[in-house]
């Protein structure tokens, strides 16, 4: 291979480093107007009245929109169509958009916001999941499983109680993972305009143009064929630009009403309100083990603070319990998850989507188990690593597993054997592992169509244009597309132009989420390129009189393997093919393998293949202040095959960076004022100054190694790298803290305050720990029983899932959710 596997400068690097990439906010159109949103200043209230008369009269103001202009709800998941572009009758958090002003410039629009009078009638505020569990009324939404519970899940794969009874020890731990946000450098921005032919175009910094396309058509009630969505290059997404957003629908509506282009660029504060970030999760993990470390069974319970809207929340809930089984062999497994609504910005998918929280608990608990059983944590994990080509207890089909190799690489590189539990006081190292999907096996809305499509146009010049709906969010998807095509056709990546993320010009790709693009778009690109290669080979074969199976495509030539001098330039091959077959264009598409899970909820977790990571983190702690420093991180990632190792390493190191932030600093927290004096519930610090995220000076040295065992389902064997390497770092930090000073911090962020409190507890003879005391009481529905494969299960629930469950609450809402 010439292109694949070779570290290359990414195709969009030049534009990015020379400032020529055109982000959404760089777009300037003639006669363009500017939009600002008035956001709720109360956390939960009925809107009594919105009076925009004064704002409308302000010179320079062209239009004021309110909830009355947006009667149709939308939402990313078909089961959670609970958002309106502007609030109708109800606001649900401080920051919820209520009205929009479109004016000649941003300043005029901003100043006109203050002229809109909104009268609110306050409703009870739900600031925490505990409050939402305790009070069913008033309901934040009129749908959901019960009261203010959005989603309740209860799944059981095999008899966990029997597994616990058969074990030597059962470990029972409670952890808390604080919420945090994506913090992309680029704030969301969108420009909408009406084309000369009357159609609507929206340029937006979105990760999911196809879903935005669907949402726009729905919310504005216009035929989808009259709407074009162009995803501009994203200055980072991390999951925060995966939902259709209020501001996109508002500027689209305004552009249609005014017949002028309308732009909005959110402020940093507004990005904190869009959020859709990491759910705060309280979790309880019970794990039965034998004395040799073998796991007999596991029971996971999670409580997610969902914030004010559904977003991806139903999927997030399932994800908190989906991937425990793909790293270590767990013969019996049960999961109960609960997501509640609260009056805070909605949570959703952030890098790792729902899985980092439980992974954090699982990997710390394994560290505790290893210590209790007097096993080395690395040895313990190596004993229980899931076997390749396995169907897990919850029906996830695992193919290749490079996890053991990852563990061996990081423990060797970090000199684990001589340093674990042997470093001087205040210094420690910790290990943790993880896994992540390479693309969700199911689309967000049910359909049988491909998840990714690629079209190729071959030009007589020898140039190739590749069209795909995939979205470049900084991860390098354009480079992967170009690299795959160039490899198959034997040309240079610079010969290929990528046209991506444009619903008018490109075939559908579902979007840059769930680490799906490299695998799905890559496979589609390979198929399209192979079809083009076949056409060219046919034409060249006739010209040279050489059978097609002897032709090689390399170095911009097509030639005979047995006589390299006999051949034609690639451009000539295109010309021969065009003469023979007419204009050369091919298509490729990819649909993931069918899931083995056939129970309700089994749609979350299946993937064509899973990536694996292992990390060792070193920490230094000052016992006087609790101050933590992370000097070094060793990380190994099972990538299957690195298509462009430069990009892969960038993703691994970027993951470590984000992980250090989540482990030590980042928290999306809220301030409630004294209830006697105020109803306010506000984001504590919606700014990049006070929402703490590491600077380059806080970044540890990172040693990265890639484990490459090509996976048959991946393009050239590749797996994902965008999310997985984030996951092991947070628990590895916690485990390193324990190695350093002997206290357990069972939550993130791990701050100096918490370390000192745990040290205080230790010296006072109390448990040397900081973390939640108990998991809240939740009235769970009866579990869906799914016998695991080794008990003769076929992926279906037993008894039949169609039979209503006895203790299921409010079954009527089922109809709403469907």
């Amino acid at each position, binding site marked *: 291979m010439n292109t694949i596997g070779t570290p290359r400068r990414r195709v969009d690097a030049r534009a990015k480093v020379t400032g020529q990439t055109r982000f959404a906010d760089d777009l300037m159109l003639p006669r363009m107007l500017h939009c600002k949103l008035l*956001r709720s200043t109360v956390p939960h209230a009925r809107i009594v009245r919105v009076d925009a008369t004064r704002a409308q009269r302000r010179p320079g103001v062209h239009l004021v929109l309110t909830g009355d202009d947006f009667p149709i709800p939308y939402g990313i998941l078909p089961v959670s169509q609970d958002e309106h572009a502007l609030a109708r009758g109800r606001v649900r958090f401080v920051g919820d958009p209520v009205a929009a002003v479109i004016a000649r410039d941003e*300043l005029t629009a*901003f100043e006109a916001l203050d002229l809109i009078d909104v009268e609110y009638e306050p409703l009870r505020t739900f600031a925490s999941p505990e409050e939402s569990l305790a009070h069913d009324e008033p309901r934040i939404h009129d749908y959901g499983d019960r009261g203010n519970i959005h989603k309740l899940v209860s799944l059981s794969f095999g008899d966990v109680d029997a597994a616990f009874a058969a074990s030597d020890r059962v470990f029972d731990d409670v952890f808390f993972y604080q919420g945090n946000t994506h913090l992309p450098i680029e704030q969301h921005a969108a420009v909408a305009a009406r084309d000369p032919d009357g159609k609507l175009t929206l340029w937006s910094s979105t990760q999911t143009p196809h879903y935005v396309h669907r949402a726009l058509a729905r919310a504005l009630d216009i035929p989808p064929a009259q709407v074009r969505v162009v995803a501009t290059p994203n200055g980072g997404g991390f999951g925060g630009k995966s939902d259709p957003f209020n501001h996109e629908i508002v500027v689209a509506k305004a552009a249609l009403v005014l017949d002028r282009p309308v732009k909005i660029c959110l402020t940093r504060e507004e990005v904190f309100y869009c959020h859709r970030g990491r759910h705060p999760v309280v979790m309880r993990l019970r794990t039965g083990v034998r004395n040799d470390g073998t796991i007999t069974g596991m029971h996971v319970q999670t409580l997610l603070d969902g914030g004010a809207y559904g977003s991806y929340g139903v999927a997030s809930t399932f994800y908190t319990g989906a991937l425990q089984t793909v790293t270590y062999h767990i013969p019996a497994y049960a999961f109960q998850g609960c997501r509640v609504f609260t009056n805070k910005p909605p949570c959703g998918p952030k890098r790792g989507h729902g899985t980092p929280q439980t992974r954090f608990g699982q990997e710390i608990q394994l560290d505790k188990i290893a210590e209790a059983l007097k096993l080395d944590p690395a040895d313990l994990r190596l004993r229980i690593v899931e076997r390749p080509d396995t169907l897990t207890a919850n029906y996830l089909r695992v193919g290749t597993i490079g996890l053991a190799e990852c563990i061996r690489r990081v423990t060797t590189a970090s000199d684990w054997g001589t340093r674990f539990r042997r470093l001087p006081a205040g210094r420690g190292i910790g290990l943790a592992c993880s896994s992540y999907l390479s693309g969700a096996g199911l689309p967000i809305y049910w359909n049988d169509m491909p998840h990714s499509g690629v079209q190729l146009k071959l030009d007589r010049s020898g140039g190739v244009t590749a069209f795909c709906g995939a979205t470049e969010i900084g991860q390098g998807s354009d480079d992967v597309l170009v690299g795959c095509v160039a490899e198959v056709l034997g040309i240079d990546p610079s010969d290929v132009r990528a046209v991506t993320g444009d619903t008018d010009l490109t075939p559908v790709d579902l979007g840059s989420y769930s680490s799906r693009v490299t695998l799905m778009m890559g496979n589609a690109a390979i198929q399209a390129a192979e079809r083009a290669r076949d056409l060219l080979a046919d034409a060249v074969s006739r010209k040279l009189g050489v059978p097609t199976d002897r032709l090689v495509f390399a170095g911009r030539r097509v030639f005979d393997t047995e006589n390299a001098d006999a051949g034609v330039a690639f451009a000539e091959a295109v010309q021969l093919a065009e003469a023979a077959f007419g204009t050369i264009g091919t298509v490729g598409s990819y649909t993931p393998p069918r899931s083995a899970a056939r129970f309700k909820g089994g749609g979350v977790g299946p993937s064509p293949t899973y990536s694996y990571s292992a990390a060792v983190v070193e920490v230094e702690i000052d016992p006087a*202040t*609790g*101050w933590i420093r992370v000097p070094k991180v060793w990380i190994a990632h099972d990538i299957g095959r690195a298509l462009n190792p430069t990009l892969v390493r960038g993703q691994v190191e970027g993951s470590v960076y984000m992980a250090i932030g989540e482990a030590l600093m980042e928290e999306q927290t809220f301030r409630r004022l*004294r209830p006697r004096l105020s109803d306010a519930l506000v984001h504590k610090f919606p700014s990049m100054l006070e929402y*703490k995220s590491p600077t380059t000076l806080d970044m540890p040295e990172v040693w990265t190694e890639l484990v490459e065992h090509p996976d048959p389902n991946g393009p050239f064997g590749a797996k994902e790298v965008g999310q997985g390497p984030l996951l092991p770092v947070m628990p590895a930090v916690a485990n390193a803290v324990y190695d350093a000073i002997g206290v357990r911090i069972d939550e993130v962020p791990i701050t100096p305050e918490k370390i000192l409190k745990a040290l205080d507890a230790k010296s006072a003879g109390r448990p040397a720990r900081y973390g939640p005391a108990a998991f809240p009481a939740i009235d769970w529905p009866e579990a869906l029983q799914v016998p695991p494969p080794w008990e003769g299960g076929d992926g279906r629930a037993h008894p039949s899932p169609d039979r209503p469950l006895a203790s299921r609450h409010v079954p009527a809402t089922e109809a709403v959710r469907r």
Partner: protein
Amino acid sequence: MMRLPEFRFVAPRSIEEAVDTLASHPPGEAMIVAGGTDLLPNMKRRQQTPRTLVGLARIAALRAVANGDAATAGVTLGAGLTLTDIVRDRHIAEHYTALWQAASQVATPHLRNMGTLGGNICLDTRCNYYDQNYEWRKAIDFCMKRDDRAVDRGATQVCWVATSSPRCLAVSSTDTAPALMSLGAEVTLASAAGKRRLPLDDLYRNDGIHYLTRRPDELVTEVRLPPRIGWRSTYWKLRRRGSFDFPVLSVAAAVRTGADGAVEDARIVLGAVASRPIVAAAASASLVGGPLDDDAIARAAELAAQPARPMDNTDFTLVWRKRVTRAYVTSALRELRGDRMARAAQVVR
């Protein structure tokens, strides 16, 4: 993005012209901008909305440095010097180490290139309830430290940090002031009525709103530092990250020791624990007359932490910040004694 409100910009070329401009405006109408790294973000958040800004960048006299003989005359620094100017001055690094360290840890290199010494001394006090944009502050019905628009709306008089507090508890967040105070600095204020010179200590009041004794028509023109032969000084800054952050605790310490190792004079000043820099007088006095041994340092650290009153309006919890005060005073004094100290979360040089 967030937009500045409209304002008129005046750029005087001399101190006289500047103070005349200030005198010609009613109080609150005109504000001085000397770098803008503090004021302009505040204006974008509508915390301050002056009709006129008086820019000082064109006044050459404010960027002068008078380096006297360190033994006798000290040094006079123009208030318009940028923090980068201070960081690049070898004389300051050598003789006024605490100031040099403090200046080098303000914000980021870009902000130090713009921010000035005078601006940092006059930095607005900070609070998590106040350093928020207009809509956010509206959501909490504003607070005691508020702008004119909030007053028009009949906003609350409460300090949300401690609702029974009669005064605003916003936090003094200047890095250079504690360092300068530990070094015995004086400032000169100029107005149309003339000049006055006062110890820097006297420029501050422990009130988050009225945190300066400077009148609105006065301009800080220069900072004078006395000779500091025989002194050693240091500045310890607590912040979450290695760059960017305001202090949530700082300790400036300066000590003069005799040939026998006994402390002859000492000045410990705490930053970011009140609405003004706090001189730890009892702690400083406790050091005089004896060597900087572990007992003396422990005693001083305990005494210094007593006046520290961190509140729940900055990063980190107040209990922890109070506790770290002892650790930081200890570390600063040990460093002055000659111990090699590792600094948490700060990068010097």
